[in-house]
Every structure is written in structure tokens, then in C-alpha cells.
């Protein structure tokens, strides 16, 4: 029992340090030229989406990474979506639509609700809260 708790504590410390190091890298990447969103993993990637193809959605309830995977699953199966980026810290979901395509507010609200969250605001373009 004692050994297990000690092992758990060491594993936690290891992952905490690893995460801290990753955050350092993220901060560094954010400082480049005020890009809308930096490319990261393929499934959580806005790529080089133009401002007119970017939708920023402020949502509530966005607290858990594992649960928020539903956002990717719901949005990325649509043919009009090019990419998605989730920001747990700010409670924002950025959606990149394919050039020339858009998604109306009612559909966005339904997609967010289906993913398990509530929409607070929808903003189109690069600038958001």
C-alpha cells in the first residue's frame, strides 16, 4: 500500500514536470506573429485558416479534455469543417470551415450541444475574447 502510494506520487510528479515543460513550448509558440491558432496535432488543428473561414465559439462546461474529444468527433465528421481547436483555459472552440463554406449559428449551437456543452457566444473572424 505504502509502495503503491509512493509510486503514484512519483508518477504524478514526473507527469507534472513533463506537462510544465510542454507548457513552456506552447507559450513560446503562441508568441509568433499573432497567428489565430498554431498548428498542433492533426485532429486539433486550424492549419492556416483564413479569418473569414474562422468561427470562435465561447462555450460553458468545457473543463475536461477527455470529454471535449466529442467536439472533434462531432465537428470533424462534417465535410464543411477543415479543422478545430479547443482552448480549455479560455472556454473557446475555434472552428475552421473549408474556403467559401460556412455553418449557421443554429447548426453550430446544435453541434456544440450534441458535444455536451452550451454556447455562450459565436464570433466570426480572427478576433475573439
Amino acid at each position, binding site marked *: 500500500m505504502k509502495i503503491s502510494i509512493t509510486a503514484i506520487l512519483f*508518477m504524478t510528479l514526473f507527469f507534472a514536470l513533463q*506537462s510544465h515543460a510542454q507548457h513552456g513550448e506552447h507559450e513560446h509558440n503562441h508568441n509568433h506573429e499573432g497567428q489565430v491558432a498554431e498548428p498542433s*496535432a492533426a485532429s486539433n488543428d486550424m492549419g492556416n485558416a483564413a479569418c473569414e473561414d474562422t468561427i470562435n465559439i465561447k462555450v*460553458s462546461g*468545457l*473543463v475536461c*479534455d477527455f*470529454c471535449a474529444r466529442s467536439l472533434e468527433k462531432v465537428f470533424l465528421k462534417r465535410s464543411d469543417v477543415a479543422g478545430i481547436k479547443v482552448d480549455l483555459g479560455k472556454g473557446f472552440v475555434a472552428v475552421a470551415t473549408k474556403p467559401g463554406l460556412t455553418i449557421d449559428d443554429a447548426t453550430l449551437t446544435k453541434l456544440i450541444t450534441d458535444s*455536451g456543452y452550451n454556447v*455562450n457566444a459565436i464570433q466570426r473572424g480572427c478576433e475573439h475574447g
Partner: protein
Amino acid sequence: MKLTVFTLCCVILMGYAPQSLSRPVSYPGGWTVMQKNDKNAHSLHVHYSPTAKYSIGYRTEYWREENWQFHGAQLNYLVKRHNAPASQANFYLKGGLGTAHGDLGVPDSEPQLAAFADIALDWETRRYFTSYENRVYYAEDIAKFFRQKARVGIAPYIGDYGDLHTWLMLQVDHITGERDNISVTPLVRFFKNEYLVEVGISDKGGILFNLIIRF
């Protein structure tokens, strides 16, 4: 008495800290596989969510000491979800219906009707987590008992989307029936992307290992 005190503690806990990460209901069209093991039993639950309100799936359990197993269908229903700017709370009802097989290995042991009903509540922020769940089992002559568990958890660091997330948790289990007891299990939960793993060991020496994968 034990049951009353434990239930009261859980209710108080939920009152002070108004989620389950394992989410028994997923997004429309989503599949989830949950494999759980503890000192009492091993279980496998595979479910599909037609809508964001409910899921339906197959469940099997094997209870080690009593040597019986359950096979059946399980329905999970999201009664209420409360999304706040920095937290989420959920209230689920679950039910299962199937057959129980006791005295494994005995040729003339007949399967019996079995069912369970379950209430689950959870609340979490990015830092804190709490949940409570109970279940009533009925399996004719094989088993009849009540089980409840409560959890509290804290994230030692706040990870970004896509990071490896870690939670330190404490789970308290209470089970009635032949093995009437309360056990305490410290555990650690890791998740990254669609994979969640929990590892712990109870004060009774039982190993806890849970794995959840979402598709």
C-alpha cells in the same frame, strides 16, 4: 447504520462540491468501451449513443468471490447536465437487464433473471472532481445487494488540451450483502486524447485498474 452514515456523507459531499469523466453517454454516434476491475468484480461495458441524451450497450460482469457473472443490456440516460463557465455537473440514471449465471462450472446451473438500477452524479472543474454513484442489484437466488461509491479528486497540475492529464483521487466503496464492508481506494487517473486509465489499491489490498476508450 453503516449505509446511512455513508449515504449521508456522500450527500453532504455532493452538496459542498456540486462530474464522471467516464461519461456513460457520449456524442451522437459515439462508441465507448469501459473495462473495470477491482477487488470485488471485473466488468466490461460497451455502449453506443444514438443521441447526446442516452446510450445503450452490452454489459458483462464477473464477481470473483461469489463466482457468478452477469450478461445483459444496459441503458444510460442523461437526466440533467449543468454547464457553468468553469464547471460541469451531470445526473444520470442507468439500468440493466439480463441473466446471471452462478456456480460457474456446474453443469446444471441455470441462468437466472438479473437486473440493476443506478443513480450517478458528478461535478468537476479543471482542478477538482467529485462523484457519487449507487446501484441496486437483483439476481434472483444468486445475489441481491446495494453498492455505492463516492470519489473526490484533485488535478496536481492543469494540462492543456492534448496534454497528458493526471488526477489524484480517493474512492470510498460501500457494499451490502454477504461481504458488507466499506473500503477506501487511493488511485491515480491518467488520460490523454481518447484514452483513460485508472490505477489504485484499496485499504483491503485490492487492485483497481480501469480502462476507458472512446471512439
